[in-house]
């Protein structure tokens, strides 16, 4: 057995007189509990938004439908998008999974600022409730789409208090995201365990670091845009209205300057999950690890310069510039695809539920990515902008990331969270139903968009020929809905009849799998030596270390010289860390 690095001895000698029950839940600053709160809250938002989606799809299953009024329909798609994007996809990743997993992956006892972390959650929860309260006020929830374009979101065209609640909700959750971003960046930079150099960080942590930096770039802009919108609504400013010399298109510029980095804030964490899960179930290190880190940085850098590709049809943006930068994002994204394929190449693939969800992600994201490249070309965007083609595209991308990869992460880390296993058979049912439903829902929407069906319409005429594809899409949506019953039953069964999981059921690579399941207060009793980006693997497989030299084309069995290489790098540790 290798000698273990002892850590946090002082912290563990300190006795914890923690409250229990509700008081613990309310007052805890433990990143694991806050992360769990985030995950549960964001999953509630996900299910609420999913139910809204089913209502929307039910409305569209027949032409000239009168199930919902136009006002209800407009409010529901606004809240569906707002909940999914602001309250689920982002918070689930950076508030939930990252909060729980990132300190464990870097070998830290907690986040850098535990109380700020707690504040962040309570801001998020209150922001979410504030936004949902819109349903209870006169006139119903905000009905101007999740983007809230001015001047439709002005007090003239959207009167009432629901839009104000929506704006306040965005501002509160925006601050919570900023605080979490600060915490993630600081934790990654300052609380890494000895030996955990930057190029030994797990890819999930790398991606969360880059995501957090993007949060710090993007969310303040959103909050500022919302403050200005609020001022326009109530203080008589004319920032977004032509009446007083304001510029409506300014809102779009500000919003998308947030909104496009936001797309990658919603994507990078999930790329990180996939990049952690695929190597584990391929029994190999991540192929092209450093290339992937630089690809992530490149995506983040480019993402700050592509916002106006949402505005190609405004007629007031520099088309070639935004088109070229948007197209270029395909390159680092392509690198990631080849990294994932290269990782599976010549591996020993085991198709557990998390791995299946990652495979599902690959296909979904491939299709969504290719149509995204098409939309980066302004003439093609002219033909498809604001149609169901775009709806299908971004659902394939966001569903691919937040749902496929998000639930891959949930299944993957579930044994770590609770120390018990979910049931594989039900996980597979979830995957296959989800996959059938997913493709059945969104492929028809591409065709509908090409045929000219606009997005955000509450009804369509009967003789325009869109009915059968809409019916197919609605059936698909219901299959997706049913698939989540298997998730809920799975969690319930594993709760009632626990099967102990052990600390490392997957033979995984990264430090969180060295902690107990669930991890103890302040996470680690001991840490293994950290000499690569997969210290737990190295600890358990000293005879199968990563090939760090050569290009991998050699035929010789590298085991012998690998061990040598690892020993060689051992002495370099102190230098690296300094």
């Amino acid at each position: 057995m290798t000698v273990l690095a002892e850590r946090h001895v002082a912290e563990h000698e300190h006795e914890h007189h923690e409250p229990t029950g509700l008081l613990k839940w309310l007052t805890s600053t433990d990143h694991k509990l806050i992360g769990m709160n985030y995950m549960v809250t964001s999953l509630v938002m996900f299910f609420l938004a999913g139910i809204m989606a089913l209502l929307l799809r039910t409305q569209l299953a027949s032409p000239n439908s009168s199930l919902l009024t136009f006002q209800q329909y407009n409010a529901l798609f606004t809240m569906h998008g707002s909940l999914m994007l602001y309250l689920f996809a982002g918070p689930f990743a950076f508030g939930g999974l990252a909060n729980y997993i990132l300190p464990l992956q870097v070998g830290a006892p907690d986040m850098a600022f535990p109380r700020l972390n707690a504040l962040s959650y309570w801001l998020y929860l209150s922001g979410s409730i504030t936004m949902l309260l819109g349903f209870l006020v006169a006139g119903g929830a905000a009905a101007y789409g999740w983007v809230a374009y001015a001047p439709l979101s002005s007090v003239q065209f959207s009167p009432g208090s629901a839009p104000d609640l929506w704006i306040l909700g965005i501002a509160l959750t925006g601050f919570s995201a900023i605080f979490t971003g600060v915490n993630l960046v600081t934790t990654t930079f300052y609380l890494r365990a000895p030996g955990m150099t930057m190029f030994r960080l797990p890819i999930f942590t790398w991606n969360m670091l880059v995501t957090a930096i993007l949060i710090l770039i993007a969310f303040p802009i959103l909050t500022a845009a919302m403050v200005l919108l609020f001022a326009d609504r109530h203080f008589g400013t004319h920032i977004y209205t032509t009446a007083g010399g304001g510029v409506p298109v300014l809102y779009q510029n500000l919003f998308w300057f947030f909104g496009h980095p936001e797309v990658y804030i919603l994507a990078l964490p999930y790329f990180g999950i996939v990049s952690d899960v695929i190597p584990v179930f391929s029994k190999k290190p991540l192929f092209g690890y450093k290339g992937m880190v630089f690809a992530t940085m490149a995506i983040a850098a480019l993402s700050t310069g592509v916002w106006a590709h949402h505005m190609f049809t405004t007629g007031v943006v520099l088309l070639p510039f935004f088109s070229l930068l948007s197209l270029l994002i395909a390159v680092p994204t392509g690198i990631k695809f080849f990294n994932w394929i290269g990782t599976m190449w010549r591996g020993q693939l085991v198709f557990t539920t998390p791995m299946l969800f990652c495979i599902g992600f690959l296909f979904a994201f491939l299709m969504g990515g290719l149509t995204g490249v098409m939309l980066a070309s302004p003439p093609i965007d002219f033909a498809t902008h604001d149609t169901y083609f775009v709806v299908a595209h971004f659902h394939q991308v966001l569903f691919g990331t937040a749902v496929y990869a998000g639930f891959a992460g949930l299944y993957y880390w579930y044994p770590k969270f609770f120390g018990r296993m979910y049931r594989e058979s039900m996980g597979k049912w979830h995957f296959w139903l989800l996959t059938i439903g997913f493709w059945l829902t969104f492929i028809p929407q591409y065709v509908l968009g090409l045929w000219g069906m606009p997005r955000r319409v509450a009804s369509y005429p009967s003789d325009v020929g869109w009915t059968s594809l809409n019916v197919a899409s609605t059936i698909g949506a219901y299959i997706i809905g049913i698939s989540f019953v298997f998730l809920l039953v799975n969690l319930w069964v594993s709760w009632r009849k626990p099967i102990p999981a052990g600390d490392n059921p997957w033979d995984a690579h990264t430090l969180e799998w060295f902690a107990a399941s669930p991890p103890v207060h302040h996470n680690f009793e001991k840490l293994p030596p950290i000499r690569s980006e997969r210290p737990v693997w190295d600890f358990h497989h000293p005879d199968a270390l990563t090939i760090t030299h050569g290009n991998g084309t050699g035929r010789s069995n590298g085991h012998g010289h690998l061990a040598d290489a690892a020993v060689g790098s051992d002495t370099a540790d102190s230098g690296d860390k300094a």
Partner: protein
Amino acid sequence: MASVVAVSRRDAETSRSFASRKRRRALGALVAAALPIVLGGCQLPTFYGYRGSTKQGHDEFLLYAGTVIAAIVVGVIVAALIAWSIVRYRKRSEDMPRQFQYHIPLEITYIVVPVIMVLILFGFTVFTENQVDAVSPTPALKVHVTAFQWGWSYQYPGNLTVTGVTTEDPDPVGINGAQCAPAVDCLGPGLVVPAGETTRITLVSNDVIHGFYVPQFNFSRYAQPGVTNVFDLTVQHVGIYRAQCTQLCGLYHSLMFFHVVALPPSQFRAWLSSQQRAATTVSASISHPTTKAAA
């Protein structure tokens, strides 16, 4: 209003002067030579899109179809690699796989090849968008289109303004006749243009943002307060083209239909003069929102 127009035109000129004239001509010649070879003109499958009933829309279609073909090739290759990995490398034994991590030549390849592909697509994109956005100095007709909650107003030469509220008045132009099949093609107010000739559209809105979108023209453009958009449509064939607002514009967004009627030029001119003769009564009875724009 006039200053805004000037600003948006200056923007357009700046963007056009990005590449030098010479380079653009060389690129244009290259693309023009490559397009028929690569795309095979009209024999392309439509890939569920429209071939484009305007000159501009057809240019878009060629780009769309070429891009779809490229996307299918890339998609099939990548999907096949994923599928091969799943099938070939599923766990068959307890053997430890080789723990390789880097392959520099391969990694450089999968950076360089996509960069080249993206640049090629970018070249075609710039060429096509310059075609689509080009504005003729001598259009046969100029129409000032105003979108509003919820309808469309068309201001033709000779003080003729036709306004239709889509939620009330399905077809104020009244020339759908037997050509309207299905009836959905004639929903909303009709914009009448001569077929085979270029129509200059000036597009504005005085309330919220609307989207001027004609599916079969493969074209959409925002009608926005504070921005005047100018573009050309050259409808190639006589016909009636269903159209709809695409940008969420409030409660009745779903009903904000309109349509474009392309008449043979002689018939168009007869229609225009007959409408212009009756214009005094029409414009007196409707107070259209464009009057505010002119102020």
